[in-house]
């Protein structure tokens, strides 16, 4: 009796004195409540009549129903319009942009890693800019170049002005522009993944085959390609999954011609209060995304994964381009420079045009920056924009700090519990948000916190819900960053402080934090950046009081006030590019690899 009492007391005392343990349990509970419960709640919602739908669904609010699923999946023409068409569009757009992005990205990776092409630094910098800037600013830029005056509230783009006649609709709106913009946005992602994989194929593997008499072509076919194939497949799936739920681009380029993808269908259903349907769309989107990610993790299972993404620098067989060296270098650098800078330049120009699409000096105006036009004030002098800017900065900074802080703590508890089941569970739970596209995430949190939950009041309409949604959405990134930072610091440094009698808070603040400072700052800035530029996640959660800059542009676009949206886009591009470069300098690495790739 006495003995077992003492044993229990000893256990408790050990538990209390090992912060890695109670931290892990806290994370388990919090993740459960903020990830598992909301997803479960949303699934539950799709089977129960939502408020306002009692008459449509033929029952009382809260009754079990298959109404939403039937409506979306099995209602003939209606389902075709609601689900099947947007679904097909989504798959078509996503698969096509993935293929294009992979071709461009991998060719670039090959040129950069495997040849002696000149101007690599410049080209490499240009290549990642379209990936850093928000994809919806690229969509705006597309309209400034290829937009036409034929559709709705559209206006002539550069091409129409030059040609003197409207650009065809297929070039201005719909699938082709969406695919092009997403391909431009994501090819750098494929490039970074491909270059990392290529860099891990050590030259000796190819040389060993040469020694055995294989020809150069045979070496590529039998050695290099098979080794790279799993990594390429994985890169393609991640590229596909990353853009699957993009909202801004199809909203700006598809909606004017009623070209819907799942993300825009989801938004439109939610916007008119049909949450039941919106949640079913969310489920469809999450299912596709999760299947892709699961397929990916199967694909890169142990034996088949020959390259490591965090590639150690290895020796490379560099192909000498000979007389083609300079021409290839100029061509690639030139194309990259055009793709990178032209959209931004035209976007900036357009913010100074009183009438859209008229490129002349007497059309120059500062109205959209510091003036006024048709009752809307320039973005630098409009109190609404200022309020949104304050919200955006508040959100970006708090999410950034939260991500970095939570990341370090997750990293601490996971790395110190290495090999124990709880570490694995915490790590894997923190990766769940990775399979949920941003807009689906917004919908999930909407379903969870649009009504009071126990002691938690209605959070819809507060900055808190946006903050929590963004933070949870960034968890995979936070967790990966934190775990790798903590693994690098190693255990002994902390243990020697413990031997000297330092308490847990003291060890964290005096030892662990200073040693992971760079990673912490890098994580903070990158999270800040992705929060500031995000439109997918926040679009369903913002209200006029909690408006943020990126979502504000959507309102301007709906009103046909493109210059205002462009101006906000320019501000965000400057902010985002500047911060990313600072993060790159701080972490002395290529921080972009943490952007998309959340699975380790």
């Amino acid at each position: 009796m006495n003995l077992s009492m003492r044993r229990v007391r000893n256990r408790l005392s050990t538990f209390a004195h090992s912060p890695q343990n109670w931290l892990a349990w806290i994370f388990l509970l919090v993740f459960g409540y903020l990830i598992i419960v909301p997803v479960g709640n949303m699934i539950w919602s799709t089977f129960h009549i939502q408020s306002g739908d009692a008459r449509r669904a033929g029952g009382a609010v809260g009754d079990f129903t298959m109404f939403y699923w039937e409506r979306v999946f099995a209602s003939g023409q209606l389902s075709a319009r609601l689900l099947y068409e947007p679904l097909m569009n989504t798959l078509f757009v996503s698969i096509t942009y993935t293929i294009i992005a992979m071709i461009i990205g991998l060719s670039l990776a090959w040129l950069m890693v495997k040849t002696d092409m000149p101007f690599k630094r410049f080209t490499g910098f240009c290549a990642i800019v379209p990936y850093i800037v928000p994809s919806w600013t690229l969509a705006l830029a597309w309209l400034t170049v290829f937009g036409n005056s034929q559709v709705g509230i559209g206006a002539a783009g550069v091409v129409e002005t030059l040609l003197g006649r409207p650009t065809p609709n297929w070039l201005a709106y719909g699938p082709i522009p969406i695919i092009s913009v997403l391909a431009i946005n994501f090819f750098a992602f494929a490039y970074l993944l491909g270059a990392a994989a290529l860099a891990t194929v050590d030259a000796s593997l190819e040389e060993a085959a040469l020694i055995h008499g294989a020809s150069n072509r045979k070496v590529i076919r039998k050695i290099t390609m098979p080794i790279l194939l799993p990594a390429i497949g994985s890169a393609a799936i991640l590229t596909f999954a990353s853009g699957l739920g993009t909202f801004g681009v199809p909203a700006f380029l598809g909606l004017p011609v009623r070209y819907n993808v799942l993300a825009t269908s989801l938004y439109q259903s939610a916007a008119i209060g049909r949450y039941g349907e919106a949640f079913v769309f969310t489920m469809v989107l999450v299912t596709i995304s999760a299947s892709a990610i699961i397929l990916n993790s199967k694909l890169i299972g142990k034996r088949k994964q020959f390259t490591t993404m965090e590639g150690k620098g290895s020796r490379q067989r560099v192909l000498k381009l000979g007389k083609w060296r300079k021409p290839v270098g100029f061509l690639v650098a030139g194309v990259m420079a055009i793709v990178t800078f032209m959209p931004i330049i035209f976007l900036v120009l357009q913010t100074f045009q009183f009438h859209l699409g008229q490129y002349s000096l007497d059309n120059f105006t500062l109205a959209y920056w510091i003036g006024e036009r048709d009752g809307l004030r320039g973005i630098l002098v409009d109190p609404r924009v200022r309020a949104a800017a304050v919200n955006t900065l508040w959100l970006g900074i708090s999410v950034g700090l939260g991500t970095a802080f939570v990341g370090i703590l997750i990293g601490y508890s996971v790395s110190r519990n290495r090999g124990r089941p709880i570490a694995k569970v915490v790590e894997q739970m923190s990766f769940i948000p990775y399979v949920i596209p941003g807009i689906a995430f917004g919908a999930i949190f909407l379903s969870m916190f649009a009504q009071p939950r126990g002691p938690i009041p209605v959070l819809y309409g507060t900055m808190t819900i946006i903050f929590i949604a963004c933070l949870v959405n960034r968890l995979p990134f936070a967790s990966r960053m934190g775990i790798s930072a903590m693994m690098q610091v190693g255990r002994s440094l902390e243990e020697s402080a413990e031997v000297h009698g330092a308490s847990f808070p003291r060890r964290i603040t005096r030892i662990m934090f200073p040693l992971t400072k760079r990673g912490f700052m890098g994580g903070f800035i990158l999270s800040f950046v992705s929060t500031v530029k995000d439109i997918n996640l926040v679009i369903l959660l913002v209200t006029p009081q909690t408006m943020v800059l990126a979502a504000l542009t959507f309102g301007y676009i709906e009103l046909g006030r493109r210059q205002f949206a462009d101006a906000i886009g320019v501000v965000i591009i400057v902010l985002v590019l500047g911060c990313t470069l600072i993060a790159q300098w701080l972490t002395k690495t290529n921080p972009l690899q943490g952007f998309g790739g959340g699975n380790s």
Partner: protein
Amino acid sequence: MSRIILEHVTKRFGDYAAVNDLSLEIESGAFFSLLGPSGCGKTTTMRLIAGLETADEGRILIDDKVVFDAADSTVVPPGKRGIGMVFQNYALWPHMTVRENILFGLAVRKIEKADQEERLRRVLSRLQISELVDRYPSELSGGQQQRIALARELVTGAKVLLMDEPLSNLDAKLRIDMRVELKQLHEETGATVIYVTHDQIEALTLSSTMAVMKLGVMQQNAAPSEVFAKPTNLFVAQFMGHTPMNILPATIQGNSMQIPGGSLPRAASSASCADGSQILIGARPEELLLGTTQDERSISVRVESILPMGYDSLVRVSVEGAELTIAADERTRTVDVGDDCFVTFDDTQLHCFDAETHERLG
């Protein structure tokens, strides 16, 4: 048979000559080691022979066939040179099983299936790795990977085997076992082995001849015993040996040499030196004797520290600002730290070097 000849071979990377005017003849069936510190050009030399790098000047012959000639731009591709190569990281193809790795070269050479299987069986049983045949490289230990890499090169029956620091990734115990194994394999196959290493013990124990390189230039090419006993210059002298050779400045005076702490009878190899000239003398720690009695070959020193190493101890002594290391037999050692005692030189074994050129004298 499989003689390898290099004639005035030079390879530059930019302005830097990684291999500088290297001429070399490697006898058929030799176990030839290229030894030197990192960056000395030994690996580049091997890669030039393999054809993985192309030299800027000179000529290379394997088996009396010209495989490279800068004069008429002859470059035989690596696969046609009749060589095998074991890489430092083994370079096993990660997407192929052990079987596929080993059979790759035979398939490229279009060897009959039955013959392939027979050769595979033989090489597997010779290297005692039959049970690994269906594994992937990632499922093998370092030592096993090493054996597969060897098997892959042996199976083709190549008469020239190039090995680039093949043992450097193994732990100490395994390295010694593999050394024995490599020596046996060499004897069994009769192949010409070119072996790159920075580990002098490997070079000394394995080679029939060896070359020491420094900054792209070959310093000495001889049997291991000779390289050890008669280093051709100061660099080779200090590079070879467990503990670096002791070097002292000496001034020739008639029949004696003035060194810090006293004088010694003039070494035979300094015969050509004029009276009053400055030279450097070298003695390995094992060639010095520590004692309490003085004679004409000894100088007075003070013991600074002692590092016991089992049978031997490394005793560090000081004399007039110079320091010497002596390997003393631990069982007969009588001196201790702080003692004054004597170091006796063996003038028949003294190495003498020119003070300016650092070349060996005599």
